[in-house]
C-alpha cells in the first residue's frame, strides 16, 4: 500500500466518521443525563429526510440543515415526553422512534416527491460543497509527507465534517468545564442529589435531549446533503446503532468516543479497499467479517474482555420523585 492509497483510506475514514461522531456525541448528551437513547438511528434518518426534502424544495442546504435539526429535536422531544414526563421505558421509546421514522420517511417521500420513496437528486448548489483549505494545493506539492496529508485528508471536506471535528472539544468543554455539564453529569449519576439541590431533573434531561436531537439531525443532514445527494430509504443503514456502539466503546467520554468512531470508520474504509483483494498468507477476507468487527468489538468490550465500560449510573432509570 503506497502513501497515496493510505491517504485515500484515511480520507474515506474521515468522511465515514463525521456522521458517527455527531450521532455519538448526541448519544453522549442523552446518556450522560441519564436517558438511554437507542433512537439515534431514527433521528438521524429523520434528519436525512428533512434535510434533503427542505434543500430540494428551497434550494438551500442551510435550510435543509435547519429542517434536519428541527426534525431531530422534535423526535427527541417525543422521547423526552415519553420517558421523562411519563417515566416510560427508554428502550421501548427509542425503538418506537426508530420504527416510526423507518416507516414515516419513505411514506412522506413517496407522497411528496412521487419518486418511489426517495427525494429528488440534489443539484450541487443544494448540497454542502467541499472546502479547500488555504494553501492546500501549494503545500501539497511542496512539503513532502505532511503536504499531501494536509491536501488529501485534512483539506477538501464539507463544512459539516469540520463542524463534527469542532463538536468534540466543544462537547468536552461543555461536559467537563461548564456549569451545565456538571449538572448534566450529576443528573446522570445521581438524580435525587440534583433534585435535592433544587435543580429540576426533568428540565436538565429535556435540555440534554434538545442537544441530542439537534446533533442527530445534523448527522442526518450530512448523509443526505453533504455525503450523498438526496434521501434514499433506510439510508442510515444501522449507523445510529454503530454510533451507540462507538459511544459505549468510548466509555461515554468525548475524546475516546471520537477515537472509537475513527476506528469503526477506518474498519469501513479498509473493508472497501479489501474487497476481493488476495492478501498473501491469509487469502481473501470476506468483507462481512470486517463489517461485523465494530459490533463484535463492542460486545467484547461490554463483556469486560476488552477494558470495561461503565455506563452513567442513573441511565435507563426514569426519575420519580417519590421513590
Amino acid at each position, binding site marked *: 500500500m503506497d502513501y497515496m492509497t493510505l491517504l485515500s483510506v484515511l480520507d474515506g475514514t474521515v468522511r465515514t466518521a463525521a456522521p458517527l461522531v455527531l450521532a455519538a456525541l448526541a448519544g453522549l448528551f442523552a446518556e450522560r443525563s441519564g436517558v438511554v437513547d*437507542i433512537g439515534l438511528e431514527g433521528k438521524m434518518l429523520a434528519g436525512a429526510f428533512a434535510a434533503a426534502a427542505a434543500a430540494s424544495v428551497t434550494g438551500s442546504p442551510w435550510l435543509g440543515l435547519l429542517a434536519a435539526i428541527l426534525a431531530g429535536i422534535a423526535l427527541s422531544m417525543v422521547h423526552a415526553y415519553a420517558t421523562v414526563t411519563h417515566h416510560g421505558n427508554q428502550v421501548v421509546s427509542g425503538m*418506537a422512534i426508530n420504527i416510526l421514522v423507518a*416507516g414515516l420517511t419513505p411514506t412522506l417521500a413517496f407522497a411528496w416527491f412521487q419518486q418511489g420513496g426517495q427525494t429528488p437528486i440534489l443539484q450541487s448548489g443544494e448540497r454542502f460543497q467541499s472546502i479547500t483549505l488555504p494553501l492546500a494545493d501549494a503545500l501539497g506539492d511542496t512539503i513532502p509527507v505532511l503536504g499531501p496529508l494536509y491536501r488529501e485528508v485534512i483539506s477538501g471536506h464539507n463544512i459539516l465534517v469540520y463542524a463534527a471535528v469542532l463538536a468534540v472539544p466543544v462537547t468536552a468543554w461543555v461536559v467537563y468545564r461548564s456549569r451545565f455539564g456538571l449538572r448534566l453529569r450529576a443528573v446522570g449519576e445521581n438524580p435525587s442529589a440534583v433534585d435535592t439541590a433544587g435543580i429540576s431533573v426533568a428540565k436538565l434531561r429535556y435540555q440534554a435531549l434538545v442537544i441530542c436531537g439537534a446533533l442527530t439531525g445534523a448527522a442526518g443532514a450530512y448523509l443526505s446533503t453533504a455525503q450523498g445527494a438526496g434521501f434514499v430509504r433506510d439510508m442510515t443503514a444501522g449507523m445510529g446503532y454503530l454510533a451507540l456502539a462507538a459511544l459505549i466503546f468510548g466509555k461515554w467520554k468525548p475524546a475516546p468516543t471520537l477515537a472509537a468512531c475513527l476506528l469503526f470508520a477506518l474498519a469501513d474504509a479498509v473493508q472497501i479497499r479489501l474487497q476481493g483483494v488476495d492478501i498473501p498468507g491469509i487469502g481473501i477476507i470476506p468483507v462481512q467479517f470486517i463489517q461485523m468487527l465494530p459490533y463484535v468489538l463492542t*460486545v467484547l468490550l461490554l463483556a469486560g474482555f476488552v477494558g470495561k465500560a461503565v455506563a452513567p449510573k442513573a441511565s435507563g432509570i426514569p426519575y420519580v420523585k417519590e421513590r
Partner: protein
Amino acid sequence: MASGSTNGTGDAAGKGFNQPGEVPGWVNYALLPALNLVAALAVSSLVILAIGENPIAAMGVLLYGSFGYPEAVGFTLYYTTNFIFTGLAVSVAFHCGLFNIGGEGQAYIGGLAVGLVGLWFGGAPWPVVAIIAIAAGAAGGAAWAYVPAWLQAHRGSHIVITTIMFNFIAASVMTYLLVDVLIAPGQQSPESRQFDQSTWLPFMHQALGWIGIRIPNSPLNLSFVWALVCCALVWVLIWHTRWGYEIRTVGQNERAAVYAGISPSGNIILAMAISGALAGFVGLNEVLGVNHRLILGFTGGVGFVGIAVALMGRNHPIGIVLAALLFGALYQGGSELAFDFPNINREMVVVIQGLVILFAGALENLFKSRVEALFRRSTRQPATAG
C-alpha cells in the same frame, strides 16, 4: 443500563408490563390496549391526511384487503404466524424483565438452521423434516440468544445493546454464508438451492384439501398450527410450571428471587433461550413453509414487529394472538392499500407499528394513570355517598 439490577428493562418496565393495578382485569387487558390502538390509529390518520388521502377510506381498504375475501385471510394468517412467534419470544423475555431486541437476529439464525435441515434431508418425508426443523430452528434461535443472555447473567453486559449488536452480526454472517458458501451453483442472486419438494411444509390449502375442505391458495402453511401450539406451551410454561414461576419472580423482583433461592442468572439464560427458540420458529414459516430455500433478509423486520405485538398483547398468549392478527392484517391490508391509493405505500404500516410501540409501550402511563384515577374516583363515590 441500570447498573443496580441486571434487568434489561429496569423496575418501571417490570411493573408496567405485567403487574395488574387496582383496576379490574378488563381495563388492563382490553380497555388500555384498545385506547393505545385508537391513539396510534388516530395519529396514523393524521399522517394519511397530511399526504392528502382520506384516512377513513384508507382504513376501509385496509380492512377489506386483510379480511374482505378468502384469499386475503390466508395471507393475513400467514403474516400472523410470524408475529405470533416473535411476539411470544419478546413476551417470554419480558416476563423475566428482559428486553429482547434480538428477535430479528435469532429468527435469522433459527431460519438458517431450518434451512440447513431442508438442504440436508432432501427426500425425507415432510413430517420427519418438520420435527427435525422445529428442533433445529429452536436450537439456532436459542443459541443466538444464549450468548447475550450469558453475557448479561455473568458479565453484566446490557442485553439490549448486545442483542442489537447480535442482530448486525447475524446479518453479516448470513450475508457471508449466502454470498460465499450456500449460494446455489450458477446462481446470481445470493440464495441457496431449492429444497427437495418432499421436505416442504404443506400449505394450509393442501392440508385442508386432504380432509376435504377447500380453501383458496395462499402462503399460509402448517407452521400456523405450530404457532398456536406454542401459545399454549408458553401459557403452560409461564403460569403453570416452576420454571415459569421462577422466571416471573426474577422479572418482578430480582432481589426477592435471590432471597427465595431462585437464581437470577440461570433464569435469565433460560428465558432468553426460550425466547430465542420461539423467534427461531419464524424460519419454519418463511424458509420451510413458503420460500423453500434460504434467501437474503427473509426475516424482513418480524423481530421488531414482535415488540409491538408483545406490548399490545400484554404479554399474554391470547393477547399476542390477537395483536399478531392485528399486525398480520395491517401487513396484508397494507399492500392492498398501496395498490389502491396513489399516495400511500407499504411503509404506512410501519408507521402504525411504530406508533403502537410508542403508545402501548413508551407512553403506556399516558392513559393508564388517567384511567386508573378515573376508575378509583368512580368506585370511591358510592362509598362516600352512603
